[in-house]
């Protein structure tokens, strides 16, 4: 029983982080109908920056985390302005461009940071006895808490602010939003940056636990796509539920079915969802 609750907890912790970076993909898909293949590479970049700021430049780890998330936001703005803007209206082309970009970034990281795993220092150490069932690492519990805080902040941003209202308007009906005075280019730019920043936030939270290498971003992007499709393209609540479902399924599946096939579960879910319910768990029926 204690094994089971450990796997379940692991699943929930990973799931909430999946939800965090998947929200970035969902935001960009909802606003721009662009799938950003380089999403995982921004997660990785955030991990590298966080390690760099904390170890090489000697900032406090928490400050380093915040700084690298901001850096990723700016990088996201640049990517949107330089590479995505010329592809407006051609979904396939933006897909191809971001796919190439992800390969370029992976190889650039390999050159700059080397193939070895990098990690920023832990914020906390030790472990806590959870519900007197099992010992669980404090860093992971903190990661769970931080991810939850960022997700709640994101939902507040979307639900209660002017920017959030604009985002919802544009994802409902782009042309109508433009007619009532929303500047679509600026919304695209900021949403893309914000989506990337969410990948960055997930990166800085998770890298103390799972150090980054140049290629781990591929898995992050693919997981994010599975979560977004499972939750329903563009649905934020769906992302959170989808992330938790995938996290739990992966961890229970790895424990009780086969650990070698851990990554497979997500892709099987993806194909099943696309086949039987393309709108996902919470999506609007648009397909």
């Amino acid at each position, binding site marked *: 029983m204690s094994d089971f609750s450990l796997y379940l907890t692991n699943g929930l912790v990973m799931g909430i982080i999946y939800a965090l970076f998947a929200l970035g993909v969902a935001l960009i898909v909802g606003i721009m109908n662009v799938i950003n293949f380089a999403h995982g590479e921004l997660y990785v970049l955030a991990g590298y920056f966080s390690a760099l700021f904390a170890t090489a430049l000697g900032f406090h780890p928490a400050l380093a985390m915040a700084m690298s998330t901001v850096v990723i936001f700016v990088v996201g703005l640049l990517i949107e302005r330089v590479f995505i803007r010329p592809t407006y209206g051609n979904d396939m082309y933006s897909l191809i461009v971001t796919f190439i970009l992800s390969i370029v970034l992976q190889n650039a990281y390999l050159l700059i940071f080397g193939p070895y795993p990098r990690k920023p220092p832990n914020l906390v150490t030790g472990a806590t006895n959870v519900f007197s069932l099992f010992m669980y690492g404090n860093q992971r519990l903190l990661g769970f808490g931080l991810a939850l805080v960022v997700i709640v902040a994101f939902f507040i941003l979307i639900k209660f602010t002017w920017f959030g209202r604009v985002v919802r308007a544009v994802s409902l009906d782009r042309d109508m939003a433009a007619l009532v005075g929303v500047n679509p280019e600026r919304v695209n730019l900021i949403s893309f940056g914000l989506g990337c920043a969410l990948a960055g936030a997930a990166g800085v939270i998770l890298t103390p636990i799972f150090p980054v290498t140049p290629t781990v971003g*591929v898995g992050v992007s693919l997981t994010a796509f599975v979560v977004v499709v499972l939750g329903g393209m563009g649905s934020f609540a769906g992302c959170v539920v989808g992330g938790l479902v995938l996290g739990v399924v992966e961890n229970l599946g790895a424990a009780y079915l086969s650990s070698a096939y851990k990554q497979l579960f997500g892709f099987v879910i*993806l194909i099943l969802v696309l086949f039987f319910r393309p709108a996902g768990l919470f999506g609007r029926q648009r397909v």
Partner: protein
Amino acid sequence: MQYWIAAIVALGCFATLPFFLGQYWLHAAIMGLFYVMMASSWNLLAGYTGQVSFAHAAFAGIGAYTSGILAVKAGIPPLIGLPLGVALAALLGFALGSLCIRMGGIYLSLTTLAFSEILRIVVTNEYEITRGTMGLKIPPLFGEYSKTVSFYVLLIAAALMLWAIRRILDSDLGTSFRAVQNDETAASSLGIPVVRVRIIAFVIAGAMAGLAGSLYGHYLMLITPHVLSLDLMFLVLAMTVIGGMGTFVGPIIGALFLEVLSEYIRVYGEFHILIFGLVALAAARFAPEGLVGLWRGYFARKVRSGQ
């Protein structure tokens, strides 16, 4: 007519290559032919029907592993295994194409991506059958191993494949492909069976990739999960984009250009893929129609300025 003469002259020039290329460059030429087949068949699907599939390398892997495993485990001669591999790739192309008919655009790309990754994970993990990342040693296509023979086999296969693609593009089917890409609703209102056209494109492209992959495997005599990885998929995509997506000669030029380029920059090791990526990114950003588009633009300007 001019077109066919140019094609035959190009083929003739290619056929003489083994007489003055060393072993090293002959290998490069064979790899170039493999990439020409991969990029041209992917272009048929992605460039002409607008279905950006990420499963093309996976289909090559299906072709390679089918004939390879049949030869090693069941002792079936590769000459029989190869058509079986092509048939299986076509069948899976049909299945994947049918799975994707209800979705377009990014959904299709994600489904093909998932399909490709599932296949890669299974092949990597089923060590007993595929020998995982160690790679499976397989016999040559027929007789003794010979680079020159392999070159001619791939040259003939590539020439036939390009001829078939040209014929398809010039036929009614090719017109339907482009109609489906440009505007699916309009195409279907004109009585084009959109669903059937899209699936046919998937089957043809899948079979072609299966053939290319199988020939590639029997040439290298070692197949690893790398064949069906996203790395190979990236090369094929980059070659098509750099050459010119949605044009007939674009993928051929892109594949040969990148293969020759990669032999020259191989000395830089890790830079290799990065340079590819940067060239592809620049092409995608500044010359969306690739080298062919630049060439045509240059000609159009010349004509306009009255030279």
